[in-house]
């Protein structure tokens, strides 16, 4: 019995050693906080503070906006994030769109996307005929080791796209070292296996130094609603076109206290926000 236990310990140690050796070759498993392992920093101290080791690129994330007209802000944030995440990585990015988004959400404008530093030629645009095949397509894309990222653009909260589906995506993203992101247009917040969930809203831009009544740096109101590896938070950031990166943009209004870190955090909202105001 004693001998067995010793043998066991030796074997366990050997297994651990093998694991460690293999893990160091495997992308997506993080041992330290360097970019080679898929951890990046935003360069905004307040935001980096909530990510202990850095923002995990190789995982499933979610970017959502509550109203359809916010889709520009959400897409812009995602484009900036992608450009930041993809600097190190080669490979294409699959952009898979649920056909329901197309009706009122328009389409990506390559010239605008390229201004965020993301080369439109890197995008592989997939237009599935329905949501079911869209989910299949993003599953397949997450399996591909040559891709750098996969974006699934959905509208609202489709019933098919549930916890299990997101968990599967998360596992594949981690295993294959992909940046996978759900871009949710006009949906409620929903339980998912994503590492982070961001809520994006357009915020009034600052004054333009050169032009009277001109539009200054574009600002986004950002709420980190969910963070698996740390606290959540709320910031207003601005896109610095010159340096091609986001920067902290303190507004006149004092940033509200960060949402509490232990989930569930916020009181449920009463009623429902409709996509558009009724004019009459």
């Amino acid at each position, binding site marked *: 019995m004693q001998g067995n236990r010793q043998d066991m310990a030796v074997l366990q140690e050997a297994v651990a050693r093998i694991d460690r050796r293999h893990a160091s070759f495997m992308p997506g498993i993080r041992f330290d906080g360097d970019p080679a392992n898929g951890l990046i920093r935003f360069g905004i101290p307040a935001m980096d503070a909530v990510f202990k080791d850095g923002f995990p690129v190789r995982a499933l994330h979610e970017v959502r906006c509550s109203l359809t007209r916010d889709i520009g802000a959400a897409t812009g944030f995602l484009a900036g994030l992608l450009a930041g995440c993809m600097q190190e990585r080669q490979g294409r990015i699959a952009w898979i769109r649920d056909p329901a988004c197309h009706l009122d959400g*328009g389409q990506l404008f390559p010239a605008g996307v390229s201004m965020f*530093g993301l080369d439109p030629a890197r995008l592989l645009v997939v237009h599935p005929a329905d949501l079911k095949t869209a989910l299949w397509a993003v599953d397949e894309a997450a399996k591909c080791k040559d891709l750098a990222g996969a974006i699934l653009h959905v509208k609202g909260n489709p019933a098919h796209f549930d916890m299990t589906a997101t968990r599967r995506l998360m596992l594949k993203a981690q295993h294959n070292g992909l940046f996978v992101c759900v871009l949710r247009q006009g949906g409620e917040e929903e339980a998912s296996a994503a590492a982070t969930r961001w809520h994006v809203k357009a915020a009034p831009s600052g004054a333009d130094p050169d032009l009277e009544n001109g539009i200054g740096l574009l600002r986004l109101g950002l709420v980190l609603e969910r963070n698996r590896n740390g606290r959540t938070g709320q910031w207003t950031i601005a896109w610095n076109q010159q340096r091609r990166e986001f920067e902290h943009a303190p507004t006149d209004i004092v940033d509200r206290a960060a949402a509490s870190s232990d989930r569930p955090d916020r009181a449920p909202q009463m009623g429902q926000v409709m996509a558009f105001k009724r004019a009459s």
Partner: protein
Amino acid sequence: MRLVAIDETGHKAGLRTGQTLSDARALIPGLDSFDHDPKADAALLSAIATWCDRYTPLVALEHLPENVSGGCAGFFLDISGCAHLFGGEEAMLEDILDRLRAAGFLVGAAIADTPGAAWAFARYSDRTVIAPGAHETALLDLPLAGLRLEPDLLDMLRKLGLRTIGCIADLPRAPFAARFGNDLLRRLDQALGREDEAISPRLPVPELSSERAFAEPIIMQEDIERTAAHLAGALRPGLDKRQLGARELELKLFRVDGHVVSIRVRAASPVHSVPRIVMLFQERIAGFHEDLDAGFGFDLVRLNVLQSEARQNQQTDLTASSGQGEAYGTLVDKLGARLGMDRVQHYVAADTHIPERSFGLLPEAADQDSAAQKLLWQDAARQDGGKAGPVVLSRPVVLFDRPEQVEAIAEVPDGPPIRFRWRRSLYCIARSEGPERIACEWWRDGRGGHSRDYFRVEDDEGYRFWIFRQGLFERETRHPKWFMHGLFA
């Protein structure tokens, strides 16, 4: 109403095409008649021609005027090099006739050296297989109608006492041509083989093809996939020998009842390995909205390579790829096979300033040469956001395919709007920049096209829009309209 076609019993009862329906009814009171449906006829003929593919890849529909066709439609099958696969010409002909008769068609057929001779024997003789070289003498006894001639010409010849092909075969040619035109001699030469006649096959001949016939028809999808794998394996040596990979493949499933299912797939890069080819078909079949209708089963399965390309032999990287996950080409193939190649796309830039025309989406192919396109994008990026360029985010990230009209109120006719109503909600403009004028493309839109003045506007809540006024006030129109075209971040 006149009779267009008559079945066998009708012929025996003395009906003729061109007769009026009332005359025919007078002859046979209980006559069944159906409306003539040329489209359905054509569809049926094309279905039979597709079915004939199982005998030879060269199947042609005969294109003859209605009054020349001898009362029935026909096909030419070029069976050079195919007959031995079916146990000889007699056996092959018997097989074709048996199957078509079993399907309920009244058919006649003949095999001869020239299409013209086969046409004549199939219609005006009982002989079915004419030995090579024997058609010249055998044709001489057939009536002149066997030469595919116009009825008027036939009448004229009959009045002259010329009834069989033998009557005119050896007559002096020059007076004949002068009197009856070239058509008669051309048809005669074609039938006798003095002049070549090419048939025009419906489908291009596949570059490579392999097939498998089953005594017991297969029904299960797994069996079909296994057969596809087997056929792909059989194609492999041919592809290897030529150093080719297939870009477009077709799996043809011949159902027992004559229906032919054709499944086409395109690969993003030349493929040759069996698992890749089978995967393409699996995804394609999975992408169908309904299951493959196997009916009573498929008795012949054929795999065609429709398009092939030189294979790129790339050495696989020993260190970089860790073996997990799939390659990019496989992903594109898989998505393309399931969704259709036109749903898996990439952006290309176009040389125009009109925003909705300035880019396009093309089907993704792994080996595309998009260097030129990339240059264009990078240019655009550098110009707008490089170190030296103006620091303005001048283009939105989201663009509407079709600009949406908004009701806008501007202070001055050619100034930015103060407020506008879009999708039934009101936006008050807090900041605005513009205009950026994009003139219409007169070479496309014509003389009446209007210029667009684009404004970047921000409302009091922070939403940033790209809206434009179509038409210059007073110079182009009295009442310019406003449109919403995009959303900024």
